[in-house]
């Protein structure tokens, strides 16, 4: 992993000093809330329903053991002993005091963590493929480029006050594990016929009130020009994006109103006038960043592990865990181990300080000191020897982290919703808990197979409901919580926006409706079809019939 040098460390120290000064001025009454709010937001500090919330950036979802232990310690010392991992691979602490915030940021800076640009109308924390460096289908490690963008976008003087927030995701595989089509900019690395690395550049995707899938505006961007091309995109947006209506200020609206072709033309024109050498990183700096992600000492191992094979044959729980949560690695004899934060009946994405410590220990001992956060609100150990999978599994069982439900119906994305969020219209967490309890039987969940449920407590869509196989959107009807279901969304290679099923349902009708949808799928499905495949073939009608028939 990339390690901060003195310059990176001094950047964080200077930022903490600045924020300490700003907090001091606010607490002393030298600043009003109107003046202070944009400053605290740029340091990731929100005011939510019950307290302040600190959103800590986890750049491209990569953490080492020391960082994870620090997150555990901070959540114990300054919060209530847990944190919430989000769909943006950030960690949110929900019970923070303003007066503690500078001290917390000081502690985080000690391990190279921060909350910079996790809010505000700026370039937000980067996300990347959680399988980076471990998957056989990648053409390069996308984190190299994500780190280059992280540095370039940090305190960018021109792009700190954009029309609206701005999110960038990077992947390097044909398979999209980063939801790049729903990002403001999605970048996919690929090699051309001559073997040269290029980016496919997608601009103008996004969820929220007006969801869009991002069109490709350039198929082949030579990688060395990444930053100058990003500057051109951001400059066109900063100058021409709408600022008169907050709901139409995202770049997706600019791209949609100009059309992708015209938007691309404007970007190319701007780029043609750009002094690229002044913006793009020199080869020496790219090599320095690349060295930070160099593979660290993989052993030559046989592709099969006798230890692992005999253990899974003897232990059905391990066998199930291996089936659901363990994935092949690009190096023989290694595996990626998914850690579900979706224990049945718990809050999706929540992780206690004790659990963070356990994962830190496992990362250090078994995964080359690396852990990842996925946008599906789970954790992942990227480099585990197959020989060690039984020991890792046993430790996860002890910590309540061995739920074998990755990509199953109980692996639900849910935003904090009305239990915490000042913007929410309805709760998301209890809905997720209700549904997960109905599919608590792991055999039943495996029978149903891959089914991605995504729940948002408001139209801002932090819970990605538009791209759930089943999406659930909380709405407010005269002070009461209602939920609108949609079917057929996907955030992956077959990205699609879901179609609304019918009128919104009351809270107690949601989980039974999921049961009904699953029954239709089990009845209608053909050999090998996932829920979404059956939906695409059979259409909305049978599902709608099942949920709404009894209302007549």
């Amino acid at each position, binding site marked *: 992993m990339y390690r901060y040098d003195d310059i990176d460390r001094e950047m964080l120290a200077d930022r903490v000093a600045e924020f300490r000064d700003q907090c001091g001025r606010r607490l002393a009454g030298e600043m009003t809330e109107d003046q202070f709010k944009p400053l605290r937001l740029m340091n990731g500090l929100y005011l939510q*329903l019950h307290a302040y919330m600190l959103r800590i950036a986890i750049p491209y979802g990569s953490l080492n053991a020391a960082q994870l232990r620090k997150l555990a310690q901070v959540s114990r010392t300054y919060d209530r002993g847990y944190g919430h991992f989000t769909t943006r691979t950030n960690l949110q602490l929900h019970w923070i005091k303003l007066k503690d915030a500078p001290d917390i940021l000081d502690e985080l800076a000690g391990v190279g963590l921060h909350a910079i640009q996790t809010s505000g109308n700026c370039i937000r924390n980067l996300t990347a493929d959680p399988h980076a460096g471990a998957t056989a289908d990648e053409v390069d490690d996308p984190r190299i480029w994500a780190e280059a963008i992280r540095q370039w976008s940090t305190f960018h003087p021109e792009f700190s006050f954009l029309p609206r927030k701005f999110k960038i995701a990077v992947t390097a595989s044909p398979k999209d594990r980063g939801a790049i089509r729903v990002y403001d900019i999605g970048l996919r690395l690929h090699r051309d016929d001559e073997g040269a690395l290029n980016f496919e550049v997608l601009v103008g995707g996004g969820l929220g009130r007006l969801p869009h899938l991002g069109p490709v505006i350039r198929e082949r961007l030579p990688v060395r020009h990444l930053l100058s091309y990003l500057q051109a995109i951001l400059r066109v947006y900063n100058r021409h994006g709408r600022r008169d209506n907050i709901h139409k200020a995202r770049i997706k609206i600019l791209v949609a109103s100009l059309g992708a072709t015209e938007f691309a033309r404007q970007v190319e024109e701007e780029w043609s006038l750009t002094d690229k050498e002044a913006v793009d990183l020199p080869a020496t700096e790219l090599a320095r960043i690349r060295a930070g992600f160099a593979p660290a000492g993989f052993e030559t191992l046989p592709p099969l592990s006798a230890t692992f094979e005999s253990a899974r044959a003897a232990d059905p729980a391990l066998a199930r865990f291996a089936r659901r949560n363990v994935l092949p690695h690009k190096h023989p004899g290694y595996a990626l181990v998914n850690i579900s934060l979706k224990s049945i009946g718990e809050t999706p994405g929540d992780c206690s300080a004790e659990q963070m410590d356990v994962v830190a220990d496992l990362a250090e001992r078994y995964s080359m000191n690396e852990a990842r956060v996925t946008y599906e609100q789970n954790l992942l150990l990227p480099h585990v020897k197959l020989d060690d999978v039984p020991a890792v599994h046993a430790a996860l069982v002890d910590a309540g982290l061995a739920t074998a439900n990755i990509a199953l119906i109980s692996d639900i994305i849910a935003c904090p919703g*009305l239990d915490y969020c000042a913007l929410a219209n309805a709760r998301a967490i209890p809905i997720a808990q209700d549904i997960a309890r109905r599919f608590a039987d792991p055999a039943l969940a495996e029978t149903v197979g891959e089914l991605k449920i995504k729940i948002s407590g408001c139209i801002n869509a932090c819970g990605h409901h538009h791209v759930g196989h089943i999406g659930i959107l909380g709405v*407010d009807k005269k002070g009461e919580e209602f939920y609108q279901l949609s079917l057929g969304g996907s955030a992956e290679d077959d990205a699609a926006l879901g179609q609304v099923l019918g009128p919104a349902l009351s809270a107690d009708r949601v989980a039974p409706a999921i049961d009904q949808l699953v029954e239709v799928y089990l009845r209608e499905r053909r050999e090998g079809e996932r829920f979404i495949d059956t939906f695409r073939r059979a259409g909305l009608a049978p599902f709608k019939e099942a949920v709404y028939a009894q209302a007549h």
Partner: protein
Amino acid sequence: MKALTANRLTDGEVVFWTGADWSERFIQAAVFEESDVAEGAEAHAKSQFTLVVDPYLIEVAPVGGGLAPVSYRERVRAMGPTNKPDHGKQAVGGDDIAVLAGAHGAARSKGRVDLIRRK
């Protein structure tokens, strides 16, 4: 009927205006029958920007055994998150919390009709 709420500047805690001070408990909130009196209190609260953030008026209405905020959101603020009963004001318990918890039920049943009608 209205009450005045805000979050405390230093720690973000949900607080209610008692008529003289800010309290963490909804039961101690001053209840305003007259809208001009309520608005006067709100204006005064906005001037206390070194104590509280974003003060605003909320609708309250009688429920079984007492008063409760009409909106679900405000009851969550007055109690705590429903997914963690050991966090927030509800962790302390008390009669006033029991009244608010009862109003949660009311909002999902016919009791809600009374709340909305009064609003």
